[in-house]
């Protein structure tokens, strides 16, 4: 294999995607590959006589390693370096004059080379011929051989000595002195360690606290008043059975998948855009989100879940639906952050593979193999050769993350230089917002593209005739942007104007190629070829990859199996963390030498083996932990224990925790009664389509204004209708004493601004991605990298560009401002107030109902006094109505610490 092959594979995968028929009678996209043949004598002669002397004489002075001068990072010494090019892109793309910047420069288009004069026409003609004949070039790079400093013995030693590399062994649960306390084996492991340190486990928490914990932990929502009453009754009979029954109930709800799916989306760095310098949307990423939620709800065996995400495209599928699901799963590999502004496509390809290796190994194995891209891993026994063995596995696929080419091709722009296609799904299930075009619209769209192309060509001729370099570049940038947008619209529909169904993901290339080790990870420093393989330190038996296969399917099956020591441990540790507040291994994504050692290694192994034995059932694992005695311990502070173990590593009490951003927002919606449980299809990003996100605005701001106006009109019509229904009374409700409601005008807009005011429209556009009006669950909010909705961002949402197993949990003034002043919070407070006013006319009952809804318990006497005092002072001095006073009270319940903490 030569470097040229690598480069051209990537190139063709990107640009020359064609439709070809495959099995199951449908059509998907697959790449065409080309082969590099040895040079013919004629080709060699042509190069040596017509090309090499010109390069040496005219170019090497400024663009050569040997000359020590590499202006613009461009080196023309060897074939590989020439194809890699400099900071502006490849100098030569075989067979592609437009893509070859060297040709662009010698013909004085966007670049002017040599700088002071133009080469003779016959020389330029020679270069044209040479590029068109495939740029045959005998100048191979000298290949270095890099020796790793990590020996096989080192690896063997690490495998035998380091806990995480040894396979989990199920130990018998230890005997404990206090034999009455444990309910499950989990309790025995925990208690035994506490007893050895002479610490006592905390008492059981009160029933309502355990219930609140269970509800938030399992479905991310607070309990209802009915649940609270039922649970309290059952708890009196048997706490064990009360918990078991509730856990089973919660596990069966679709909200379970929405809760636990979101935990997975954190580690999977789920997002709907590329992030980085130029933020391009992924309008089909939402399919992966739904796939994850559905998988958790179906209790899909975790080993299968793993395999689908790494190699779903290669797994056998019985039906088109299954096949679609498997393809969508591979979105995992395609949705990482990307620098689409990267000029150098070889660098881009290497970076994409690196990101895929990093995500795959850290997410599934809790180890960072990507450290070995540039050198042997400094701490773990992962030689650089292991990285390139894995790079060999990952490089034999094409990653689809962009938008398909139209019949006019794909148009890169100055910002989004790296384009990509998508995978056609074998089922008919288009993006819900994709537009259908009539035949007239279709024809008009095509004509617009042709006209733009013609106009661009005309401009170009004119600018060249006048030698106007600036105009040339300006025109080109503008027409490329226009063409890119037009082509993106045309590309996603069939010849009748009906939208196709697409997903992001990966597809295999063949025949498989090994990767070369790159010295210091630099793309132009290729060393020896490395056989495809897996990290040796994790393989107790050597793996053999079929020479006709990439090995990716084997890798997926190996990760999703008990053959490697980490997958099960890493997952059970995460589940433990989400239920208990901190992991047995605190560094949830680092099980390597620099990670934290497990606080309870035997328990970790016990859970891992049990997880595997259960058929990798996440729900069983959750049930095991949630029904343990440990889970229901109260979180009360104990000075002596705290001095001994301030981090609660031994689990002597329940960890008090702050709810995450989604649970806080969802709980407000749930308590206010506004929550919409029906899952929205697609997402705001799918609605906007393939586009660049600028200043937090998706797609075309004019479109946003139009939509906002429409929905504002809708909202006002609804408000009017409601007023009519309530008999035309301006305040729309019965007036009672005490806390009763009396002042809502329809659904008041925060600040009393009318919806169509320019400020409000401006705010809407600026905060389009905040989606303050949405009432669906938070997991369905749009996740554009670096542009996360405020309701999530303010409460430490996981950075969508990183693999986050453990979120931060802060208390900031910013959060206080959000709870005090944000229009969404105020609107939910209004609805909450209306709800309790509807429930009862008696102030005391209203207050009790409000507390039960918000905190799962009635108010105590101190709280009753405080609220009464608030009511007196607020209502007496207020120009506000009772309704607004009640809303302010409800908002206080949302805002207080108890609402966002679970004890």
């Amino acid at each position, binding site marked *: 294999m030569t470097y040229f092959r690598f480069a051209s594979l990537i190139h063709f995968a990107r640009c020359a995607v064609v439709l070809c028929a495959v099995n199951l009678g449908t059509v998907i996209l697959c790449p065409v590959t080309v082969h590099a043949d040895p040079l013919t004598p004629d080709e060699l002669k042509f190069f040596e006589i017509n090309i090499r002397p010109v390069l040496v004489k005219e170019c090497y002075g400024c663009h050569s*390693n040997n000359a*020590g001068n*590499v202006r613009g*990072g461009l080196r023309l010494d060897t074939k590989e370096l020439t194809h890699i090019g400099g*900071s502006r892109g490849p100098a030569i793309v075989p067979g592609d004059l437009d893509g070859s910047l060297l040709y662009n420069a010698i013909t004085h288009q966007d670049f002017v080379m040599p700088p002071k004069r133009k080469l003779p026409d016959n020389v330029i003609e020679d270069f044209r011929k040479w590029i068109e004949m495939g740029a045959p070039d005998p100048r191979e790079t000298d290949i270095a051989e890099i020796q790793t400093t990590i020996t096989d013995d080192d690896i063997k030693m690490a495998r035998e000595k380091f806990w995480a590399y040894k396979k989990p062994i199920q130990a018998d649960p230890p005997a404990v002195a206090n034999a009455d306390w444990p309910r499950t084996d989990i309790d025995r492991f925990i208690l035994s360690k506490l007893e050895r340190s002479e610490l006592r486990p905390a008492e059981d928490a009160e029933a309502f606290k355990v219930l609140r914990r269970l509800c938030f932990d399992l479905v991310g929502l607070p309990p209802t008043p009915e649940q609270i009453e039922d649970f309290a009754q059952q708890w009196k009979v048997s706490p064990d059975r009360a918990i078991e029954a509730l856990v089973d109930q919660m596990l069966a709800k679709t909200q379970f998948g929405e809760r636990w799916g979101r935990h997975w989306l954190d580690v999977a760095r789920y997002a709907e855009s590329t992030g980085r310098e130029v933020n391009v949307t992924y309008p089909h990423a939402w399919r992966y989100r739904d796939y994850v939620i559905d998988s958790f709800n179906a209790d899909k065996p975790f080993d299968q879940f793993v395999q689908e995400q790494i190699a779903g495209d290669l797994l056998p599928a019985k039906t088109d639906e299954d096949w679609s699901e498997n393809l969508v799963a591979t979105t995992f590999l395609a949705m990482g952050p990307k620098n689409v502004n990267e000029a150098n496509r070889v660098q881009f390809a290497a970076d994409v593979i690196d990101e895929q290796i990093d995500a795959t190994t850290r997410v599934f194995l809790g180890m960072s193999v990507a450290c070995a891209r540039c050198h042997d891993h*400094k701490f773990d026994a992962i030689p650089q050769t292991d990285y390139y063995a894995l790079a060999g596995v990952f490089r034999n696929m094409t990653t689809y993350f962009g938008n398909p080419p139209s019949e006019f091709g794909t148009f890169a722009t100055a910002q989004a230089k790296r384009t990509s296609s998508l995978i056609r799904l074998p089922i008919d299930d288009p993006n819900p917002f994709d537009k259908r075009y009539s035949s007239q619209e279709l024809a008009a769209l095509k004509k617009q593209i042709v006209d733009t192309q013609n106009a661009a060509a005309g401009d170009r001729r004119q600018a060249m005739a006048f030698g106007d370099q600036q105009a040339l570049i300006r025109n080109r940038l503008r027409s490329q942007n226009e063409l890119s947008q037009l082509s993106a619209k045309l590309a996603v529909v069939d010849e009748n104007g009906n939208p196709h169904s697409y997903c992001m993901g990966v597809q295999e290339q063949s025949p498989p190629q090994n990767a070369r080790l790159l010295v*210091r990870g*630099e793309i132009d*420093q290729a060393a020896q070829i490395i056989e495809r393989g897996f990290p040796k330190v994790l393989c107790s038996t050597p793996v053999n990859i079929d020479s006709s296969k990439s090995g990716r399917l084997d890798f997926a099956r190996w990760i999703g199996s008990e053959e490697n020591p980490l997958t099960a441990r890493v997952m059970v540790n995460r589940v433990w963390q989400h239920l208990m507040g901190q992991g047995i291994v605190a560094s949830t994504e680092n099980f390597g030498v620099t990670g934290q050692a497990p606080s309870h290694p035997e328990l970790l192994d016990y859970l891992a083996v049990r997880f595997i034995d259960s058929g990798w059932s996440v729900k069983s694992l959750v049930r095991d932990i949630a029904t343990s005695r440990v889970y229901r311990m109260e979180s*009360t*502070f104990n*000075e002596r224990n*705290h*001095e001994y173990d*301030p981090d609660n590593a031994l689990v002597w009490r329940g960890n008090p925790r*702050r709810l995450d951003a989604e649970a806080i927002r969802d709980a407000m919606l749930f308590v206010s009664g506004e929550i919409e449980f029906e899952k929205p299809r697609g997402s705001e990003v799918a609605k906007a389509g393939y586009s660049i996100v600028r200043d*937090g*605005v998706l797609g075309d701001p004019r479109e946003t204004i139009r939509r906002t106006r429409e929905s504002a009109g809708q909202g006002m019509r609804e408000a009017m209708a409601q007023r009519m229904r309530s008999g035309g009374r301006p305040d729309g409700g019965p007036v009672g004493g005490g806390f009763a409601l009396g002042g809502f005008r329809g659904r008041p807009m925060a*600040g*009393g*601004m009318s919806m169509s005011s320019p400020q409000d429209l401006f705010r809407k556009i600026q*905060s*389009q*991605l*905040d989606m303050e009006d949405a009432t669906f669950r938070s997991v369905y909010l749009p996740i554009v990298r*670096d*542009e*996360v*909705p*405020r309701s999530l*961002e303010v409460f*430490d949402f996981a950075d969508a560009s990183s693999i*986050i197993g453990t979120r*931060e949990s*802060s*208390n*900031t*003034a910013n959060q*206080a*401002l*959000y709870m*005090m*002043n944000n*229009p969404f919070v*105020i609107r939910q407070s209004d609805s909450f107030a209306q709800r309790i006013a509807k429930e009862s006319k008696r102030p005391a009952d209203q207050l009790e109902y409000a507390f039960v809804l918000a905190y799962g318990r009635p108010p105590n006497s101190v*709280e009753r006094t*405080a609220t009464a005092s*608030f009511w007196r002072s*607020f209502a007496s*001095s207020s120009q*506000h109505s009772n309704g*607004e006073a009640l809303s*302010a*009270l409800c908002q*206080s319940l949302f805002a*207080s*610490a*108890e609402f966002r*903490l679970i*004890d």
Partner: protein
Amino acid sequence: MFSRRQLLQSVSAGFGYLAFAGMSSAEEQAASNPLASKSPHFPARAKRVIFLCMQGGPSHVDTFDYKPQLTKDHGKSGKYGGSLLKSPWEFQQHGESGLWISDLFPNVASHADELTLIRSMQCDQPVHPGAMTQMHTGTAQFIRPSLGAWTLYGLGTENESLPGFVSLSPPAGSSRNYGSSFLPAIYGGSKVGSGGPSARFARGGSGESVPDIKNPRLDESQQRKQLDLIQSLNREKMRRDRFQPDVEGVIESYELAFRMQDAMPELMDTSKESASTLALYGADGGPTENFGKQCLLARRFVEAGVRFVEVTHGNWDQHANLSNDHQARADACDQPIAGLLQDLKQRDMLKDTLVIWGGEFGRTPAAQGGDGRNHNNKGYTTWMAGGGVKGGFSYGATDEHGYEAVENKCHIHDWHATILHLLGLDHTELTYRYAGRDFRLTDVHGNVMTDILA
């Protein structure tokens, strides 16, 4: 210093209660307010800090560490492999002191006589997250309070209506770098700007400065009544839970937020700054606009009494495209930084404001891919200005090519010790008792670099 228990008491029964009950007087608050201004251990040279954090690792050999031998040995093999790469930029001597500074920072260079270059920096971490965290907290291994949080804990602040520690536009996922860890939450940095569509502030002159800074419905007295209710619920929870740092943090955050509502919009509104001031910072347009605006805000914050302000300027990580991208990064911050120094000087604030410039590490003298450099934590440069440091002074040195510090090494612990010293705090005395042990920013390390003190 306060013990945790005293603090808890003061928060739950003292400062908070007084504020809500409307019976507060300045003296009473000062007695119990954890943010109240406190006396340093010894007379301080610097009263406040502006930390210009250059995230990504700017190359010292291309900015402030002049290496003529590197130019001479260009193309030769470096001592750790790779071929040495001379700086694409020329160095000149500046000011009366004749400090060598590269052409990347022509405007900063015009203040050469105010700068102390520390050319012998070292940290233990070769990768970004670890090095950033060590630069901010002293350790990458554990979660510990940040430099700003320690400063605030030691000195309190001079304006209770503003956070005492502000981090402007910190990078995503970096809250640990301005967090308070086990110190009371009130000492953590408040993030202002960046992160999310509604939190932008660097664009547009006036308008909403901090998201949700104003209640659309309630006036101040109404909101105070609402807040009193929120806080009584919180205090009641605190009473039940006895020890609950999260509740404590929530209580503090509301009081601060309430006061910020008045103070922040005015402070963030730069529309009344004169055209010449905006131009001084480069905040009037072009590539300097964003960072210029932030430097201007930094000045406005410290002027208003904020103790510690951090401003981040990112993307210095040039493994490739060094010559273009380092130039672009420098172009965006050179004028703003120079403007800040100039402005502080003309307001007579530079004498007691410590300005710190630096990244988490430097870059290798050897080339990466022809036009790039790798991370280098063994030797790099930071600088300080104002607040009690010498001007026109160079401290420490790296080897002939700039690989590692060889003379007067300044480990990040020494750097921290010196910063605290300039603020009048003894780094060995500034301790906090947590879980039965006294913790400090410098752990068991740190030597004050007395040579750089003016």
